[in-house]
């Protein structure tokens, strides 16, 4: 019963859904139950609390937030690892909660995943050829020759050439940047429509980061791939995605095109994040950075109203600490969940 009301709400608040979205996140809640002594309910960790957005073919969005804001829980729910408490992830019009085993297997061939730590993500006892062959075997590519052809193509695309030289190597024999390319090749080998990249460059050296970001961007353009790029580093976002969603304490608090967000950041939390991101400049030495006081709230008992209000320097008493702010549209494609923008 509650499902139908949710769907109608979503349709009311987001009439733009007209174009068929590849992935539609609808009022998603992911709560983890806390138990006392292994049983007995002791509350919920509200890791994701009411997140909605649509993603179309060929679109890249970045989800930015600090650790513990729920971005990994959101990602794992999209990958079908966590089950939603409320709301749903809808892929190509099919809700994930209704998937059976076969559907899930098909879904996993449609969605690629690039992990944060490439060394941890590659099995140390398998050669690169085995690593890349495994998904093809699982997803029923019977012919050995076809598997090899696809491996060559995938490695060629991530610029791991000459391919023959890398195939018999083990992950520890190649550099971190090359490991990350193998992870990307593995994510791409089943020709997915959607790629989820969880901090794909945070473990890499500055000199390699740009290379990997550019590679991902190239793949995205060549394959009309939708990409969800999860990161805490705002400075890399603008080199990669069109849209940016800022997450705080389980909610998306600002959605905008990247350029709009950097030109006109609106939520006080976004302003704080931007202010704390430094560019290399000798002047920085003489200035202290402005940082909001305190730490992100506990997701077990998040503050009432706007979750940022205890740290916010523009808090409106009686409003921000009482009611949860809805999304206000302040310019086309730019939405802010903050009471300061009520009149606009």
């Amino acid at each position, binding site marked *: 019963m509650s499902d139908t009301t949710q769907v109608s709400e979503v349709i009311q608040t987001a009439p733009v859904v007209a174009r068929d979205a590849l992935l539609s996140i609808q009022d998603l809640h992911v709560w983890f139950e806390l138990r006392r002594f292994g049983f007995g309910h002791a509350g919920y960790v509200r890791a994701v609390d009411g997140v909605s957005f649509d993603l179309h073919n060929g679109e890249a969005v970045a989800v930015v937030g*600090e650790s513990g804001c729920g971005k990994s829980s959101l990602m794992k729910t999209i990958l079908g690892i966590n089950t939603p408490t409320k709301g749903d992830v809808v892929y190509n019009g099919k809700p994930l909660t209704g998937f059976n085993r076969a559907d899930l297997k098909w879904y996993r061939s449609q969605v690629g995943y690039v992990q944060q730590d490439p060394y941890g993500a590659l099995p140390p006892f398998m050669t690169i050829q085995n690593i890349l062959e495994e998904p093809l075997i699982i997803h029923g590519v019977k012919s050995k020759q076809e598997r090899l052809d696809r491996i060559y193509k995938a490695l060629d695309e991530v610029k791991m050439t000459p391919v023959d030289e890398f195939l018999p190597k083990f992950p520890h024999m190649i550099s971190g940047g090359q490991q990350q390319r193998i992870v990307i090749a593995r994510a791409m080998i089943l020709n997915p429509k959607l790629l989820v990249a969880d901090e794909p460059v945070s473990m890499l050296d*500055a000199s390699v*980061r*740009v290379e990997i970001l550019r590679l991902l961007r190239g793949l995205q353009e060549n394959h009309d791939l939708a990409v969800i790029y999860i990161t805490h580093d705002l400075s890399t976002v603008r080199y990669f995605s069109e849209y940016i969603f800022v997450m705080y304490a389980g909610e998306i608090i600002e959605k905008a095109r990247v350029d709009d967000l950097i030109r006109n950041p609106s939520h006080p939390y976004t302003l704080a*994040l931007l202010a*704390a991101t*430094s560019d290399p400049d000798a002047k*920085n*030495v003489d200035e202290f950075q402005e940082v909001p006081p305190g730490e992100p709230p506990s997701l077990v008992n998040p503050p009432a109203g706007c979750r940022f209000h205890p740290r916010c320097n523009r808090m409106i008493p009686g409003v921000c600490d009482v009611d949860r702010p809805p999304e206000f549209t302040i310019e086309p494609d730019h939405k802010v969940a903050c009471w300061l923008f009520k009149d606009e």
Partner: protein
Amino acid sequence: MAEKILLRAENLKLYFKASKGVVQAVDGVDFSLAPNEAIVIIGESGCGKTSMAKALLRLLPRNVDTYSGSIYLDGEDIMAMDEEKFRRDVRWVKMAMVPQAAMNSLNPVLRVGDQVAEPMMVHHGVSKEAALDHAKTMFQRVGVPVDFINRYAFELSGGMRQRVAIAMSLVAVPDLVILDEPTSALDVLTQANIMNLLKRVKKEIATSFILITHDISTSSELADRVAVMYAGQIVEVSDNNRFFTRPLHPYSVALMSSVPRLRSNAVLDFISGQPPSLINPPTGCRFAARCPKRFDKCAQEPPTVTVDRRQVKCWLYT
């Protein structure tokens, strides 16, 4: 030089024995540091930054092959000291370190207050009560609530643990603190907080810092001078102003153009290829194979030349 010098390293070398040969992790490093100055050492992973920090503090692993050169601290050659004198008079008293991933380097079964108090008891022989009092003032200074003194490491957030590790390095009021990647595992806002804290400490208690990092943007928050390391050698030392606008060495130029920036539209570039193996580093300039400006002379070892009070190890400037 007329300026007072706190620390000077000359031809510092630290080689390790490995199964495939000798790894020349730190290969003839020279630099100096003035009191209350912060120098940032930047470079790719594996270029010898952390090994150099360990060489300065003589925190050596067992597989050392060569450990040579001179390190002068306040004019005294600390390389000549025996182990006991070094431990008693230098380590933690004059020179302290915040190790990489310091937040995970706290002892999980000791209260954080006791860990911060320990150096005072060991080095200055004060009673436990006095040391704990001292730890409390340190906690205030680094912005950790004083009642956290009885907590364990797992009860603190990452940022708080990092502050505790910084408090621990500062407790015996050393002249020099070496920070190895102090903010790399932290969130943006926490990073900004820690950098603010270090700036304040630098003003208040006139400490010198050696900051080792690969995050060039964040390093600009603290750097008075910048040293760039490549394949075990320092290739450029420059003041912050000129380094961040006009780096000299081709490697520094490439490194700076690979830094993503929030507030400019500069097109990013990356350095193709990989740093050379430190087991048998190439003769001549070690960056030559990746350098867009290489020429015949680069096959020979480049000298370190001083250009306008900046040092650069490159044939282009001779």
